[in-house]
């Protein structure tokens, strides 16, 4: 009885009595969700265009952030370092297309999935070899990102909002909007959608798969860089960030592998759900439920919609 009370009533009473805490938790969940969504966005871009479940997205985030910080540490001005990192991500996309995707064209999905694992190992080894494994501080100030926080009075309490979080939310929205425009309005975007629909049909109307793949991997490299900067500004840049890729997976299945808005909405649902769960129900189970709570949320949604909230309907034919 007591347990039932603790599960079903007490958390809501807490929410009612301290609405400022609730808003604070919601806000933190929202921010975390936006960042998850950014990673999921990288996954979705690649999955849509090449059907590859890119496990290396998490390590690409770390790699991009490390390159940026490393270049800055070697005396390159911040914005030049940013441009150079974008260049590095482009080279990475070229290399991946040439040495991994092209030889593996037309292989089953699981083989490509495994290949991105190989890629993960390479990037981990390479990154540690060049930049070292110790955590580094993201050059947020030099990139003119705001720091400090706003404190908003609300419901007789305070809600604290980090400026960097607001910036992250804004950047994420801009990024999603520009990607949406890119996909819908430009020539390349149309080619990307064609490839996503059918590789063979796209090839037959003269779209170069190689070219498209370089572009999507490059685009998700840029998304990775943005994610890396934002996460790096909140904590440090280290290989521990790699695990955020695993955090993005429930977002992905919740939103659907093929939907960009799904990634965003899924991210927000997971982020908010996770923080609320950890804050209100966490003490009941002992802490650390954040690790799997997101998966449970995603699983529950999946049981009702097996293709995720916004995924393309799975049609099976004999």
């Amino acid at each position: 009885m007591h347990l039932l009370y603790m599960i079903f009533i007490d958390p809501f009473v807490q929410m009612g009595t301290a609405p400022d805490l609730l808003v604070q938790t919601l806000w933190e969940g929202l921010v975390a969700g936006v960042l998850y969504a950014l990673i999921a966005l990288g996954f979705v871009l690649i999955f849509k265009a090449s059907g590859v479940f890119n496990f290396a997205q998490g390590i690409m985030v770390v790699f991009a952030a490390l390159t940026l910080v490393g270049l800055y540490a070697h005396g390159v001005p911040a914005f030049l370092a940013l441009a150079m990192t974008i260049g590095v991500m482009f080279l990475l996309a070229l290399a991946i297309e040439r040495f991994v995707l092209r030889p593996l064209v037309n292989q089953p999905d699981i083989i490509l999935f495994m290949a991105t694992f190989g890629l993960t190992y390479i990037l981990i080894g390479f990154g540690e070899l060049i930049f070292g494994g110790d955590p580094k501080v993201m050059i947020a100030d030099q990139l003119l990102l705001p720091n400090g926080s706003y404190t908003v009075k609300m419901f007789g309490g305070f809600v604290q909002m980090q400026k960097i979080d607001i910036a992250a939310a804004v950047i994420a929205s801009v990024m999603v909007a520009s990607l949406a425009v890119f996909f819908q309005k430009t020539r390349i975007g149309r080619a990307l959608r064609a490839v996503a629909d059918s590789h063979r049909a796209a090839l037959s109307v003269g779209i170069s798969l190689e070219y498209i793949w370089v572009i999507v991997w490059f685009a998700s490299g840029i998304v990775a860089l943005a994610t890396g900067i934002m996460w790096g500004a909140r904590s440090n840049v280290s290989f521990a960030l790699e695990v955020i890729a695993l955090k993005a997976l429930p977002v992905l299945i919740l939103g659907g592998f093929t939907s960009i808005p799904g990634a965003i909405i899924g991210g927000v649902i997971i982020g908010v759900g996770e923080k609320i769960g950890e804050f209100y129900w966490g003490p009941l189970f002992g802490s650390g439920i954040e690790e799997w709570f997101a998966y449970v949320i995603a699983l529950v949604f999946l049981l009702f919609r097996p293709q995720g909230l916004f995924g393309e309907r799975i049609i099976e034919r004999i």
Partner: protein
Amino acid sequence: MFYREAGQYKTSYQADQALFPIRQDQVGIILILAAAFIAVPLMASDFVIDSVLIPVLIFSLAAIGLNLLTGYTGLLSLGTGGFMGVGAFACYKLATYFPGINIVVLVICSGFFSAAAGIVFGLPSLRIKGFYLAVATLASQFFLSWCFIRIPWLYNYNISASIEVPTRTLFGLPITGPTATPITRYIIVLTIVAVMTLLASNLIRGRIGRTWMAVRDMDIAAELIGIKLYPTKLLAFAVSSFYCGVAGAMLVFLWLGNAESESFSINQSFIILFMVIIGGLGSLLGSYFGAALIYGLPIVLRMIKGLLGLSITAANVEHINFITLGVLIIFFLIAEPNGLARLWQIGKQKLRVWPFPY
């Protein structure tokens, strides 16, 4: 020429359906078993047995388990590490509560616990497919890892949160715990792995295996010819987790000696999946090849570094190992996406037609 089945006549269905219908295979398997059971304990050093052969055998068993699920039934799972952990912790608790029962029996029994866990986490598999299912099985991995840390009952309220293996004997010889020699542990592991492989190969040749493969090839079609999807998939989850659980229990009791939740983390799941894919999906032999390759590669790389006498710091060696491993994985996938088992097939065909090209 060397591998020719011409002239080996089968006069009964039984002979035709035997596990090894070809004489070369029969001789070969006897030779391999003889080498494994007799030659290796006599000749190999303790170091080789303890740090190469035992883990490769154990990982082979885990890979076979995952192969039954992913290779034969077509359900991608990333929860292997968690299921291995269930086996290990179940075995530990059983050993605590039933000190009188032989440890080998307990190792096998612990498989049933992970089979139960497998069934529970296999429940979503009817509705969820492909990568969605893979991510769903990650949920089991994270949940189980969390349990291994947060439920102190599982490790008997040990302060270090790890499980220590007690010394147990079989026929008066210690087979677990610090006093057991590598050779006795090797023999036990080898026996269990060999018997379970035999069981698995018979399972997949029979009705159950055929229904699994039908589900893998196209589940709707399988349903149409009268295969009940749900029991079939759940059975695959159960059997696969059983194998993984036994492998996990052996990993702790017959190899590591003590373990904590870290030994059954997500990385373990990924490594086992590597073994299955590099070895060959849907091949028991491939599971052995994959385990040997993935486990052996870092050791070989380390030895090569030692032989070349390169002066690199230990940390850098680790990083270069990572890069090499990644490159080799991609290389193997490109060279033979069907896995090492396929290479073995090609090799056999070459032997068959030699000296002619076809």
